[in-house]
């Protein structure tokens, strides 16, 4: 029997769902392999029951918590989909300010009456998460491989080595050896993206979250050697990762 799969969304741009919709060549295979019962961006029906839940978005409002908890209760397997869900993502930049300041800035005086807002969290700070598909947005191959792994009863493979590895595999000139002034977070950020940003003349800005055992002290020294001050270096490390549970290590 095909597993019933729901794709759910919390605070996010819904770009990760869009990545799935964009898998034109594989979509028929996907719907052939699984029974998609909820997919907010692509269909109307909302199912009551499902085996696997892919959850996009971060938790930024009290009202989202019971909804996420209900998904956790119903799903046998819960997969965090994309940076907002895995590490809080860019939404978590607001955590540097108080909820009152955020409301005032965004909605003016009327805001606090209508909206609640709480510090942004990745979903694993609210419920248990089984697997992670990282990135902003997610990599489509990563999604397909996660689906096939779950179908095969295997643990999906998530690289826990840094982006530097993929740059070396592709024999890229290191961002720090180029003659532009780009600052790259590659040495401490989880790979799995085929080093897409450094490969196309940009630099890693950290959307897949930190690798385990990230050496922030050393990377901050490297960034400072390449012309930015320590505060700026930490700001770069926080861009996607203010909500990351490991972000305190950056500040230490």
């Amino acid at each position, binding site marked *: 029997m095909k597993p019933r799969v729901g794709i759910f969304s919390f605070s996010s741009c819904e770009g990760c769902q869009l990545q799935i919709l964009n898998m034109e060549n594989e979509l028929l295979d996907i719907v052939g392999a699984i029974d998609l019962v909820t997919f907010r961006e692509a269909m109307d029906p909302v199912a009551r029951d499902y085996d696997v839940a892919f959850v996009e978005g971060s938790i930024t409002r009290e009202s989202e918590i019971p909804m996420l908890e209900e998904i956790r209760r119903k799903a046998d397997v819960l997969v965090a989909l994309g940076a907002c869900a895995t590490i809080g993502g860019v939404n978590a930049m607001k955590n540097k300010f108080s909820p009152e300041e955020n409301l005032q800035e965004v909605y003016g005086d009327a805001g606090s009456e209508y909206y609640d807002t709480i510090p942004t969290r990745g979903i694993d700070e609210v419920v248990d998460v089984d697997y992670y598909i990282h990135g902003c947005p997610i990599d489509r191959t990563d999604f397909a491989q996660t689906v096939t792994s779950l179908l095969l009863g295997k643990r999906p493979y998530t690289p826990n*080595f840094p982006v530097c590895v993929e740059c*070396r595999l592709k024999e890229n*000139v290191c961002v720090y050896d180029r003659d532009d002034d780009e600052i790259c977070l590659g040495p401490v950020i989880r790979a799995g993206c085929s080093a897409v940003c450094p490969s196309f003349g940009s630099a890693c800005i950290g959307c897949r979250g930190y690798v385990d055992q990230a050496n922030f002290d050393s990377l901050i020294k490297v960034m400072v050697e390449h012309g930015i001050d320590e505060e700026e270096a930490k700001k770069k490390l926080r861009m996607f990762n203010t909500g990351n549970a490991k972000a305190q290590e950056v500040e230490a």
Partner: protein
Amino acid sequence: MKSLKIVPKDAFDSFVRSLAEDGEVVAPVAREPGQYVYDSVSDASALEDEDYIPTLNPPKKYFMPAEEVLFKFTGKGAPTHSGVEVETEAQAEAEEEIVLLGVRPCDVAAIRLTDQAFEDTYEDEHYLNRRDAATIIAMNCQELCDEHAFCAAMGSLKVEAGYDLLLTDLGDAWAVAAGTEKGEQLLQQIPGARDADAAAQKKLQDLTDQQEENFENVKDRLDFPAEDLPEILGEAEDHPAWQEFGDECMGCGRCNLVCPTCFCFDVLDEVDLGLEEGERKRQWDGCTLLEFAMVAGGENFREDRDERLRHRFYRKAKYLPERYDGDMYCTGCGRCIRTCLVDIDPAEVFNTVAEKPGGEAS
């Protein structure tokens, strides 16, 4: 007796052009100033690049690609708890012929070392088939490429084997020495090749003497002869410097991945969404990476960065030399130093741990 011929440079260039017409010829070319990669060439001009430093990735990428499919498989029937019944389809055995031109002695030494490892115990046909299809036209270094290389200290400035042809720059001509039967045959095909007369022999000897002088101080990069390293490391396991280097190290794996003698890989399966077809792939891995020594259940035999860094140096200069007749698995090419963002230099590491820690001063 290995043949030695003198070939005028324009004749050699024509020879390379004809090789490039018949098949692939690769040589180090600058992708950006100071950033070299092995890439396809159509003539011998890459040999004249005076700014050459070792390429980002070593030539091993032609024998052991960064990522490769080992075999494809087809599943029969639905997967069960005991797995999927598979039929495997071996990948093509014959490889395309390729000529590697301008391979410097450090990399020739490294190719011999990876050959040795892949021939040992289990013959790795994926590597060895590609190796068989490759012709190595090496080129001597007359001067040190940059401040990071310490080839002379590791004994890889001069190579006796591992190449088919070895070039030495005589100015207007190449001295071309054959190193293998394949090289002998190739040498016969080079138009304009003449025997080395007394004057050419003299010039070669002068260049050798000059090279000796040019690299004399490179030997000093190590405070002791390289062959002492296994013994030195044997006594340095608890040296406090490992912790200090480990604190700097980012565990990013770059040193492993650019190393011409690192040959470890990870194996992954990729299965299509229909669960009927899949590929088993391997890609370069590195012992400084966190999950390299992690096993089922999550146990990690080298959990800390300093342990992993130490392991890497022990592989290069103790474990593998002990397995292979004293052959150092570091050629001093300097790639790891150039790529390391925190400037960890093996020569400095070896010198540091060779010193007894503590003493009166500390």
